[in-house]
């Protein structure tokens, strides 16, 4: 047996933290992710670094926040000099493999990993219906043939439940009857409307311009379509979303079954997480790109199906704030590889071993280049940077003078984030504390100017729209 463990990083896409049956969600069945939980520690305060695929994945690959990676949205480009996990593992005596979705623009996955499968047409944002089963085939082939003394690292990027985006796109230009009108699913089968379906409209300008206004910067066509939805349509969205998760859970099940039967499970560390979540009707919102909980909070499980790795099993860690930047150092820690000095993440290994170690007391999240959030035990604080008068393409912050509108939610009294307390004088202390935490975190970041023309165009265009909203309210 290898002294160093094999490491399997299974990731799903757009998978909210609570969409797992072992976590008490009664509207879906995920027996295989449940098995991971039973064989590991589930970090309940786990947050992505940025609620969109490419950005969040750039953090997985580098251990950095997205204003540092060059990928602050899907159209970014990873700064070329930043080392990625595959490069480090290969140099450190591991065989680093990739299978499935990668979606870190600017970095050729085939140059950093041995790719088991990356599509006939390279896998982009979506397409689980075609790619996920082929990915499982590739992994099955790999696991049943692996014969090497060297330990492996294998990251499997499943696309589902991201295909819920295709479900949503299908509503852009046609009215699809609600399930009762269709006569398919009965009302009893449907999950209820999200408790936080209604929301406080005092949102940031960035959020309004990106997601709310008629000509929203992101998915305006879907927004137009869902405005014709009734309550049953929103409930049916949730129903469908959970079916996508059940599909990917079944794929994971086959991988876990093969891992057991090949006896690799004894010495294989499994990390399970998702790049970001899905709003699924909360705040009358769909998809991601927002700093609300459903969009930014994700599962993060560290598990081993055998006894070869010391992990506290069948346990919820409700205490520690875990971030997408922590994946990189965690993998390196188990692999016995030193991490680059500049990375922001911290290994969760001691936490998985239930050791008492100093730990951060917040999660820091970025969104859509200008958006920022801090999550503490008490509050969620969301804010934004105003676009610069003259854009220099250096990601903003820390700059208290340039902060725009804010939201503050009491995480205990209002977990659904439905009442913005930012303007309430009684909460000024909380706002200040969160803002100071945000600025202090940002002072530790190593931002680099965006130089690739494609993301520069996005920043210019979006910045122009944001400036117009700030100036004219539209």
């Amino acid at each position, binding site marked *: 047996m290898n002294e160093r463990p094999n490491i399997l990083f299974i990731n799903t896409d757009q998978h909210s933290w609570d969409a797992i049956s072992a976590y008490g969600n009664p509207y879906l069945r995920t027996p295989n992710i449940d098995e991971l939980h039973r064989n590991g520690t589930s970090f309940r305060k786990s947050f992505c670094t940025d609620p969109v695929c490419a950005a969040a994945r750039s953090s997985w690959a580098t251990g950095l926040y997205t204003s540092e990676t060059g990928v602050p949205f899907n159209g970014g480009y990873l700064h070329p000099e930043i080392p990625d996990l595959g490069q480090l593992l290969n140099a450190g005596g591991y065989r680093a493999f990739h299978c499935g979705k990668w979606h870190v623009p600017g970095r050729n996955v085939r140059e950093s990993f041995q790719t088991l499968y990356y599509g006939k047409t390279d896998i982009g944002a979506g397409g689980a219906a*075609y790619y996920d089963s*082929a990915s499982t085939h590739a992994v099955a082939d790999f696991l049943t043939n692996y014969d090497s003394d060297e330990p492996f690292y294998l990251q499997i990027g499943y696309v589902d439940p991201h295909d819920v985006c295709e479900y949503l796109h299908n509503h*852009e230009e046609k009215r699809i009857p609600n399930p009762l009108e269709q006569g398919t699913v009965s009302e009893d089968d449907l999950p209820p409307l999200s408790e936080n379906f209604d929301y406080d409209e005092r949102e940031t300008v960035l959020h309004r311009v990106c997601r709310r206004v008629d000509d929203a910067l992101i998915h305006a066509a879907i927004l137009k379509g869902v405005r014709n939805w009734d309550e049953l349509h929103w409930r049916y969205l949730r129903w469908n979303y959970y*079916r996508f998760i059940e599909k990917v859970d079944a794929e994971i099940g086959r991988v876990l*079954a*093969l891992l057991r*039967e090949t006896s690799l499970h004894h010495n294989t560390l499994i990390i399970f997480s998702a790049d970001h979540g899905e709003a699924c009707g909360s705040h009358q919102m769909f998809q991601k790109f927002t700093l609300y909980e459903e969009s930014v909070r994700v599962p993060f499980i560290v598990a081993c199906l055998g006894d070869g790795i010391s992990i506290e099993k069948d346990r919820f860690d409700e205490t520690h704030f875990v971030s997408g930047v922590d994946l990189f150092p965690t993998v390196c820690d188990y692999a016995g590889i030193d991490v680059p000095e500049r990375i922001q993440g911290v290994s969760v290994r001691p936490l998985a071993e239930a050791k008492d170690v100093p730990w951060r007391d917040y999660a820091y999240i970025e969104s859509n280049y200008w958006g920022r959030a801090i999550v503490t035990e008490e509050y969620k604080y969301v804010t934004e940077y105003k676009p610069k008068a003259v854009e220099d393409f250096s990601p903003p912050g820390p700059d208290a003078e340039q902060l725009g509108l804010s939201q503050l939610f009491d995480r205990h009294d209002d977990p659904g984030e439905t009442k913005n307390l930012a303007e309430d004088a009684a909460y000024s202390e909380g706002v200040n504390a969160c803002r100071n935490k945000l600025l202090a975190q940002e002072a530790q970041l190593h931002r680099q100017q965006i130089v690739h023309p494609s993301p520069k165009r996005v920043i210019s265009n979006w910045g122009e729209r944001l400036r117009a909203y700030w100036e004219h309210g539209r």
Partner: protein
Amino acid sequence: MNNSNPLHWSFDYNYGAQNPQFAQELIRILRGYDPEVGTHGTQKVQAATHVYDILPNYWRGYSRGGVREELRIGTAIIERSKNGDNLWSYSVQYENTTSGENLEIKFRCSDEDYRPLTGTWSVDARNSGDDTYSRLSCEGYLTLDSEVRLRINDTEISAGTVDTSVKLTCNWAFFDVIPALAQTIRASGDGIDLAVLEDLEQLRRKSRLGFLESIQTPLPLDGYYLYGTGLLPSYWWLDAHGDIAIASTFFETLVLREKMGDRR
């Protein structure tokens, strides 16, 4: 055939950036298929082949921005014949140019309307992508305890256990199950329950097949739906000749291009 739009919502993807246009392609394919070649009414087919073109719905990830001459991104060929042992033998070839996954699926079913799986089956997956994975063979069987077992490269795993109160069939047999059970499904009200072994690998224990509605555009069709645990709804449209002319999921649409078969 009525060429007017709109198509039924379950297979209406004639918008967005699909080029060539979806409706135009769907109608062109259906027009090329000659229903008189196949079987009529209640007569039972003893050997038949159906060929379906696969069209992408909204999703455009297959194209990567390139210009394509046709919308078709794959083909499914379903061959089956009834053997001397009174079992149906199925052979399905599924080619997907986007994933690169080409499946050859072989299975046998009892001669019942539900087409319950029997004996052993096999899936031979070949992938034309540029990466390490190129081929995987999988064999399967149902144990006496109704457990689905899969053997992959000499490693055997369980794919779950079927509830004995429902029949286990394969999604590729639906092209015969729905025509055979059409009246039963319509008479049932809420639909009928069955278990599906999707692509002979993923067990969907609780699935329901129900009647949707009848339409006249682009041709007279009766619609049926399938949904269940781990399954996104799919819609199956049966034509007057007893053939599934269109099968659509949220993601892709199979359109009947050709059929060949004996009529008994």
